[in-house]
């Protein structure tokens, strides 16, 4: 009886210790300077912070210049707030986009540090070491740059134009004992999948401590965050869909369009959220998980170049392909891939045509601006010196308003407005076409992933299959560890 009670007590203590080991999170966000620190990034960070807070996950947040005085975010003001009187001057002499831009300090709560490299790196080391035995989630919302050599040299673009490479982050997280999961949404983010491997530069050996995650893109492509949408309310990066699936709610509070919990066990895992994003995202992102990256890296030389079989194997990627193909009215016949490639080619052709059209419009815009500037500066030469005392005087005595009114009367100014409006409309058209093209590329990629998974089963060694399964298992965790 005594031994039974002791055993029971030991079990209870062990169980309570296990339930005490929950998840923690690190959020890093913002641009590398105020001009690249869009309000949408700030909104993303706040939203993710809220989701993590609702889940009871302690979160350490780093954002731009932390709590220093001075603007670190820009946003687009609404039409009503724009000073209409000076609009002609902005259109002719300035950057029309900047006319609607305003700057302010961020209003994210509980920011403990800046993202300047020399401040962030030691803080990250400390945060990572403090959570060495706890499941840790790392989320980045900002910008990134490409590597000109190996994928591990892609960077996070941090405040004050500093950077951190995937290789460097690998060395920071390497000493950990507990699972480490990551979400990167920036351009060229796929290079950060090297975090899942033992060697950050090359090789297929997966890290012994579980490390896995999700990126918006490959190491070689731009993400949705580098599109025009980042300046609008139509911004829909990987975070938008991924965390909507995890939380059950969109950014605007609406319930997600379908249940992301595909196995109906009452918990949405990271992997389920990723599949939800793959299916639901209508963006320019070709997102990927670490296990998918593994499949792509693994494919051996004697299989890589071969044309795949027509018939898809039976796995989750094949199912996703079929679901998406139905959504885009692609008949599931033997001609499906030809059909998809035809649509992709057609859309790509439209993208190229629209880009050319926009290039021509911008050339026309510059010529019109130059003509107007030359004409106006011959009458009012002080217009060419916006930071001079003479210009200030013009502003103070109301002469700028008169000049702006005079500009409005000109027919070439009306043409300029039309050209600038067409340019803006083309931005929207181009974005939509790029998003459409990405859906077709996604369909082809899902087919490829379906084949790759089957090939791993058939041709992979036992250790390779085990490595793949370990990554899948790492991805199949819920947001909050039990």
């Amino acid at each position, binding site marked *: 009886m005594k031994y039974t009670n002791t055993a029971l007590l030991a079990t209870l203590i062990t169980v309570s210790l296990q339930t005490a080991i929950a998840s923690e999170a690190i959020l890093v966000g913002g641009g590398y300077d105020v001009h690249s620190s869009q309000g949408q990034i700030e909104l993303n960070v706040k939203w993710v912070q809220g989701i993590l807070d609702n889940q009871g996950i302690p979160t350490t947040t780093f954002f731009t210049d932390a709590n220093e005085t001075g603007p670190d975010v820009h946003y687009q003001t609404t039409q009503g707030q724009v000073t209409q009187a000076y609009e002609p001057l902005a259109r002719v002499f300035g950057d029309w986009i900047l006319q609607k831009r305003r700057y302010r300090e961020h209003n994210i709560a509980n920011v403990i540090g800046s993202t300047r490299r020399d401040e962030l790196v030691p803080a990250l080391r400390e945060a990572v070491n403090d959570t060495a035995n706890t499941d840790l989630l790392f989320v980045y919302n900002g910008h990134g740059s490409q590597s000109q050599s190996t994928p591990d040299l892609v960077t996070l673009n941090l405040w004050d134009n500093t950077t951190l490479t995937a290789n460097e982050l690998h060395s920071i997280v390497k000493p950990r004992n507990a699972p480490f999961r990551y979400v990167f949404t920036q351009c060229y983010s796929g290079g950060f999948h090297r975090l899942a491997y033992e060697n950050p530069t090359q090789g297929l050996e997966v890290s012994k401590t579980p490390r896995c995650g999700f990126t918006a893109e490959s190491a070689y492509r731009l993400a949705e965050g580098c599109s025009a949408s980042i300046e609008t309310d139509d911004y829909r990066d990987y975070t938008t869909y991924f965390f909507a699936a995890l939380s059950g709610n969109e950014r605007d509070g609406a319930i997600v369009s379908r249940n992301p919990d595909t196995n109906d066990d009452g918990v949405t895992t990271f992997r389920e959220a990723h599949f939800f994003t793959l299916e639901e995202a209508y963006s320019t992102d070709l997102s990927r998980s670490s296990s998918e990256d593994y499949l792509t890296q693994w494919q051996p030389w004697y299989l*890589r*170049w071969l*044309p795949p079989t027509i018939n898809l194997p039976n796995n989750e990627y094949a199912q996703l392909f079929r679901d998406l193909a139905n959504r885009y009215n692609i008949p599931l016949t033997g001609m499906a891939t030809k059909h998809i490639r035809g649509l992709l080619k057609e859309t790509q052709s439209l993208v190229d045509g629209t880009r050319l059209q926009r290039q021509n419009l911008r050339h026309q815009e510059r010529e019109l601006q130059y003509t107007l500037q030359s004409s106006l500066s011959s009458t009012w030469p002080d217009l060419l010196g916006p930071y001079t005392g003479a210009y200030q005087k013009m502003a103070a005595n109301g002469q700028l308003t008169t000049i702006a009114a005079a500009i409005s009367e000109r027919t070439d100014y009306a043409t300029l407005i039309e050209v600038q409006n067409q340019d803006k409309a083309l931005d929207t058209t181009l974005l939509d076409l790029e998003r459409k093209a990405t859906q077709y590329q996604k369909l082809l990629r899902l087919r490829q992933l379906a084949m790759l998974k089957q090939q791993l089963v058939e041709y992979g060694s036992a250790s390779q299959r085990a490595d793949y399964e370990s990554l899948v298992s790492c991805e199949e965790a819920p947001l909050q560890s039990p």
Partner: protein
Amino acid sequence: MMTKSKTGLLYLLVLWFLISALAWPVFVFSATVLSYFAAEGWQLDAWTQIPKREMLRHFLEGYKQSCIIAIPIGFVAVIDYLLLSRYRITWLIGGILLPAAGAAIAFSLYKQPMTALPTLALAGLILAIVHRLVDILAGNASRGRQR
């Protein structure tokens, strides 16, 4: 006679080397052609989505790894020449052992032979054409056949 046998040996060595060296590029070419007509293949999307240096890296890696197959394929070309291409009648089907070797590789080394068979058969056929061209360029066609 010695000169003739030395020339013959040299020809065999050149044939072996040439077919071995071309085996992988021809395999990749065949696979790419078939992928293009099937509208599906890694290389079709990689061309626009990854840097060309990455594609080259994969190609060179495959070149290195495939030597274990390419060198015996070169030897098959030599055997084909010795058995078939030197004789007046069988010269007509000279090179046929190469697509046959491709088919044999598909059935022996691949768990799903039909995945690789079209590519390997086409690659073998192209190598057989190269084999015949080399034969013709070496003047064997005009000099007649060994009895």
